[in-house]
């Protein structure tokens, strides 16, 4: 990569700024057209799912590409931003879509696998986002931290299935995401120690 001359801290900031700008751009785009609420909800959901799926690719790709291996640090930033997008997605749903009508929200969630999966994924991702810092790794010990973060292999499949179930007809994109996920899971299974 052409950015190796930059200090790693600067590269981290560039990545963070980039993902923040992407969010701002998405929110701006969402204001075009009449349906602000579903635009915002769908943008944050879709791009959050992309970011989370990307975090799973780091381990397998780092075995083959030294560039990925040198930049493993990116996984944490991308994962945390994926969580930020997911949190925005949930907040939009609670505020703009349901306007804090908890009774209605409960009705919508009860027995609705599609939304339950989304909520499950968010609940599982929350401790991971909170422990995505060096202090938490030290506090927990690396082994325990790693065990905790293997929850991604439950949370991210839930995200992808949730994304798939949200589609009316255009299922090609979530199916592609699902295929990538399955390839990663198969790879992980075969390389498990």
């Amino acid at each position, binding site marked *: 990569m052409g950015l190796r001359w930059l200090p790693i*801290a600067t590269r981290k*900031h560039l990545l*963070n*700024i980039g993902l*923040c700008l992407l*969010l*701002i751009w998405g*929110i*701006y785009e969402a*204001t*075009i*057209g*009449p*349906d*602000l*609420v*579903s635009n915002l909800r769908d943008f944050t959901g879709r791009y959050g799912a992309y970011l989370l799926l990307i975090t799973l690719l780091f381990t397998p790709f780092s075995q083959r590409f030294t560039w990925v291996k040198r930049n493993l640090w990116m996984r944490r930033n991308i994962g945390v931003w994926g969580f930020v997008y997911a949190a925005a997605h949930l907040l939009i749903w609670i505020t*703009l*879509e*349901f*306007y804090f*009508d908890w009774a*209605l929200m409960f*009705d*919508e969630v009860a027995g*609705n696998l*599609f939304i339950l999966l989304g909520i499950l994924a968010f609940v599982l991702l929350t401790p991971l986002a909170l422990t995505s810092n060096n202090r938490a790794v030290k506090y927990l010990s690396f082994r325990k931290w790693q065990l905790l973060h293997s929850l991604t292999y439950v949370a991210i499949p839930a995200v992808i299935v949730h994304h798939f*179930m*949200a589609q*009316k*007809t*255009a299922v090609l994109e979530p199916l592609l995401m699902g295929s990538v996920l399955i390839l990663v899971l198969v790879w992980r299974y075969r390389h498990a120690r």
Partner: protein
Amino acid sequence: MPVKSSEITPEKVYKRRRVLIGAGVGVLAVPLIDKAYGVFQDKQEQLEKPLSQVTTQPSAELEPLVPTPYETITSYNNYYEFGYGKGDPAKAAKTLVTSPWSVEVGGEGADKPGVYDIAELKGESAIENHIYRFRCVEAWSMVIPWNGIKLSDVIKSAAPNSKAKYVRFTTVNDPEQMPNADWAGGPYVEGLTIEEAMNPLTLLATGIYDKPLEQQNGAPIRLVVPWKYGFKYVKSIVKIELVEVMPKNTWWLQNKREYGFYANVNPQFDHPRWTQATERVIGELGRKPTLLFNGYAEEVAYMYPELDNRLYFY
């Protein structure tokens, strides 16, 4: 004193990041506030704009209906022949030539079949104006001031015989004019029972807000059945057939578990993947409860004696 980038300590970077995040949130707020103000203003304008006289007001009105802004109705559409996105039809549909346009009325149930020009069809009966709720199966809704004719008038003039048990509608299907014409593997087909077709609420719409229909809204003529989900409102109709057998409608063929033939609005029967109990009013925040038969129960419930039969409600 300006600080050189090489002198920045991690703490300062951290503080700077806070400023950046703050700035980011500020930038986020601008389009949102702007949009919210726009929604508010549109509503004001709609309230002030007088609409042409409504000839029949369905009795089930629970509250005065405030029509959705014209710009919203014409820019938020499902018309897959022009793309899957809600904004695609408004951009892509202009290639559809809607004049001249003729509609073939026929089928084994019509004793007097014929091909009518749009002007002939409209000329046979007076244009009526109806403000109807519009409820999409995707759980969003609008309020639309339609202009159109009664479907029953068109059917009567085709002299229906005893074989006329259902009405089958076909949308134009031309790959030259429609970039995604083949999405369903054939023309878009919808159907009604003859009883539903003869109901006075059922319209063949030719306009919205006293303006001719835009292509993305189904120009030049489309079905309006306000107690059913939006996918029943077949657009840009080229053929109306009176038939003996229940037509196989496009969405039913796409997914027989999720979309049926009757597709009457009922908050009690959820879509397999989402609730139909409430709806998002486009351009407003929050959700509101969905009404049985979309608020038109008084006018249409007689046709569906079994209110617990899912057959009628998906």
